[in-house]
C-alpha cells in the first residue's frame, strides 16, 4: 500500500445545478470524503453551461440525472465538449454518468415528445422514451457488478439499449435497469461508467466509489497508487443492506401477489 498523502484528485461535476436530481450531489461528497480519509486532496469543481473548462484538468468527471427539460437544456453545451470528453475517455479518464447524464453520454436520447437530444457517444448506446403513456421505470434496484451487489433507486422514462459489443456495467437482480427487458444495467467503456442508479449511488456502494478513485489514482500517479487503504464502511454497508432488503422485499411481495 502506498502512502497517498499529498496526492491530489480533481473531480469535475458537469452541470451541478441542472443535472442533480435525486441527490446525485452525494456522489461528489462520497469521493471527497473517501479521498480525505486517505489524505488524498480531492477538489470538486462545478462546470456550468458556457464555463471555460477542459476535461484535461479532471481526474474524475461526474454527471448526474435531470428531467427531460434539463437534459434538453444542457445538450448543446455538452455537444461542444463532446470531442474533448471522448478524448479524455480514450486516455483512460474516469467518468461516472448517472441517469439523464448516462443517456446523454450515449449516442442520443429520444425524449417523451419524440424530440431527439444528441448525446456525445461515449457509450455505444441509444436511449428512447416510449411516450408519456408508458409507465416510467421506478423503484429500488439491485444489480450484480463483478460478483458484488450494487444498490440504488431508478426513476427514468427513457430506456437505454446497448449496441453489440458495448459492455453493460452490471446485471439486474431486481428492478428494471437499462430497459426492463434485457436484464442489463448501465454501461462501461474503459474507465467510463454509466448507470441509472441514484441513491446517491456512491455513498452506499463504497466499492464502486473506490473503484473510481483507484482508477483515477492509477492514471495520475501510476499503478502502485491504485491500491487504496481500506476504510471503515460499516455505516455505508448497513445502508447498502437496507436498500437491498427494500428492493428484494418489494420484489417478493410482487411475486407473492402474482402467485396468490
Amino acid at each position, binding site marked *: 500500500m502506498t502512502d497517498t498523502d499529498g496526492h491530489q484528485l480533481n473531480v469535475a461535476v458537469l452541470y451541478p445545478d441542472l443535472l442533480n*436530481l435525486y*441527490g446525485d450531489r452525494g456522489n461528489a461528497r462520497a469521493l471527497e470524503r473517501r479521498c480525505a480519509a486517505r489524505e488524498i486532496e480531492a477538489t470538486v469543481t462545478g462546470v456550468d453551461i458556457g464555463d471555460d473548462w477542459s476535461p484535461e484538468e479532471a481526474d474524475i468527471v461526474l454527471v448526474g440525472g435531470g428531467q427531460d*427539460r434539463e437534459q434538453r437544456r444542457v445538450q448543446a453545451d455538452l455537444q461542444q465538449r463532446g470531442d474533448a470528453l471522448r478524448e479524455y475517455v480514450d486516455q483512460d479518464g474516469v467518468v461516472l454518468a448517472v441517469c439523464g447524464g448516462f443517456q446523454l453520454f450515449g449516442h442520443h436520447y429520444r425524449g417523451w415528445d419524440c424530440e431527439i437530444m444528441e448525446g456525445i457517444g461515449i457509450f455505444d448506446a441509444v436511449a428512447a422514451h416510449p411516450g408519456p403513456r408508458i409507465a416510467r421505470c*421506478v423503484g429500488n434496484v439491485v444489480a450484480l457488478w463483478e460478483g458484488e451487489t450494487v444498490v440504488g*433507486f431508478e426513476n427514468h422514462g427513457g430506456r437505454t439499449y446497448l449496441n453489440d459489443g458495448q459492455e453493460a456495467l452490471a446485471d439486474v437482480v431486481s428492478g428494471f435497469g437499462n430497459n426492463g427487458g434485457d436484464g442489463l444495467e448501465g454501461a462501461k467503456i474503459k474507465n467510463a461508467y454509466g448507470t441509472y442508479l441514484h441513491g446517491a449511488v456512491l455513498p452506499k456502494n463504497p466499492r464502486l466509489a473506490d473503484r473510481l478513485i483507484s482508477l483515477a489514482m492509477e492514471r495520475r500517479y501510476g499503478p502502485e497508487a491504485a491500491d487504496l487503504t481500506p476504510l471503515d464502511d460499516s455505516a455505508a454497508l*448497513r*445502508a447498502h443492506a*437496507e436498500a437491498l432488503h427494500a428492493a428484494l422485499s418489494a420484489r417478493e411481495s410482487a411475486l407473492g401477489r402474482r402467485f396468490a
Partner: protein
Amino acid sequence: MRALGSGGTALPGLVVERLQSNAADQLARGLSATALITGTNGKTTTAAMLARILRADGREVVHNRSGSNLMRGVTAALVEAATPLGRLPSSCSAVLEADEAALPAIAEAAPPTVAVFTNLMRDQLDRYGEIESIALRWAEALNIFPRDSTIALNVDDPLIASLAMHWKGSCLRYGIEDPNVPPAPAGEIMDAVWDPQTQDDFRYTRRYFAQLGRWHTRSGAERPCPDIAADEIEPGSGSITFTLRLPEAPIAVTLPAEGLYSVYNALAASAASMALGVSPETIRRGLESHEAAFGRQEEVIVEGRRVRVLLGKNPSGMNQALRTLQRPGERHHLLVLLNDGIADGTDVSWIWDVDWESQAEHCASLTVGGRRAADMALRLEYAGLPAPGAPIANDVGLALSAALDAVPDSEQLVILPTYTAMLDVRQRLGQMGASRLWDVA
C-alpha cells in the same frame, strides 16, 4: 379536542365513494363557499389557518383535516359534516386541501369559490412525475373553475405566478416584501430554474428558500407586485411576528408558529379569507389562534419531556424545518425518522438534497429510525452529526424510546419524520399519554 393518534381518516370516503360515485358532487352543491388549497408544501397548515379564520368569522366550516387530501379524503370530509339526510348545514363553507395531482378532479367535484396555489417544488417524483407536468395540469384545471371564482397565487414562486396568464377572472397575489429576510444558503436545492415559456433563467435579487424570492428574467418578466404582503418579519421563540399588508390596512400579527414558511401559510390563508370577504381584524384573530396541524410543528409533553414534531416530506420542506432549529447557541436532541412508504416517496435519495450539515453544531444527540434508518444514518454521518447514540432501529417505536432515553429531563426532543413515520410516531406519542403543551401549561 381530538385525541392524538387517530390515523386513517380516508375510510368513510372510500365507503361512500363506492356507494355513491358522485357523493362529493352532490354534497358540494350545498356549500356556501369552497376554498381549495393546493401546492407542494403548506397545504395542511394553510387549510387549518383558513378554517380558524372562517370560524372566527362565525361561519360553519367543513375541512378535510389530517393530511387526508386526496379525492377520497375530500369526500369523507363532506360526508362527515352532512346531516343524516345527506345535506350539509346551510351556509357551510368547505376548506379542502387538494393534492397537486388531484386538483382537477377535486375542482370538478367541488367548484372553488377561491383556490390557493402555495408553491410547486420537488416532491416525490416517483409518484408525480416531472414538475412541469403538474404546472400544466393546473393551468388546464383553471378552465373548469367557475368564472367568478378567485385564485390566490404566491408570486414569490415563479411557477405559481405564471398561472395568472391562464386565468381571466379575479386574482389575488401574495408574497413577502421584507428586505431583511436572510437569503437562502448558496447551493440550496431549487426546482424552477428557468421560465418554461421563454427558456430564460430566473434570476434573483433576493431568494428566501428553494425558488421563492424576488425573481426576474432577462426578457423582462418579473415577480408581480403582491396585493397581500408580509413585512417586518421578526422570528421569536415559538412564534413569529409580522406586518400583514392587506389592501384595506396593515395589521400586526403574532403567529404562534415558526419559520418563514409559516408566514407564507398565513399569507395564503389571508388571501383566501379576503376573497371570502373576511375583515382584516377577523383574519388577525384567526391567525393568532392558530394551532399546529397534525404533526406539523406540533409540541407535546411525554414523560415529562417536551417533544416537538416537525414534518419534513421533501427537500425544501425539510430544509425549512431545519432552519427553525438553527438559532445560535441552541442545541437539540434529534430523532430523525425516514420511511419509504408510498406516501413518503419510495425514493429516499432526496435526503442528499437536504442541508443536514446546518445541524452539526446544534445536535446534542442523535437517534435514527424508520424503514430506511441506515440510509439516514449514513447521510447524517456525512453531514458531521454526532454518531447515533442507540443502534439503528427500523421500528419507529424502538427508535422513539431510545430517543426519549437520550433526552435529559427538562430538555427537548425534536422529531423529524417523513409522512408515514409522522403518523406512526404521533400514534405512539398518543398511546404514551402525550398531552398538548397548552393542555398542561
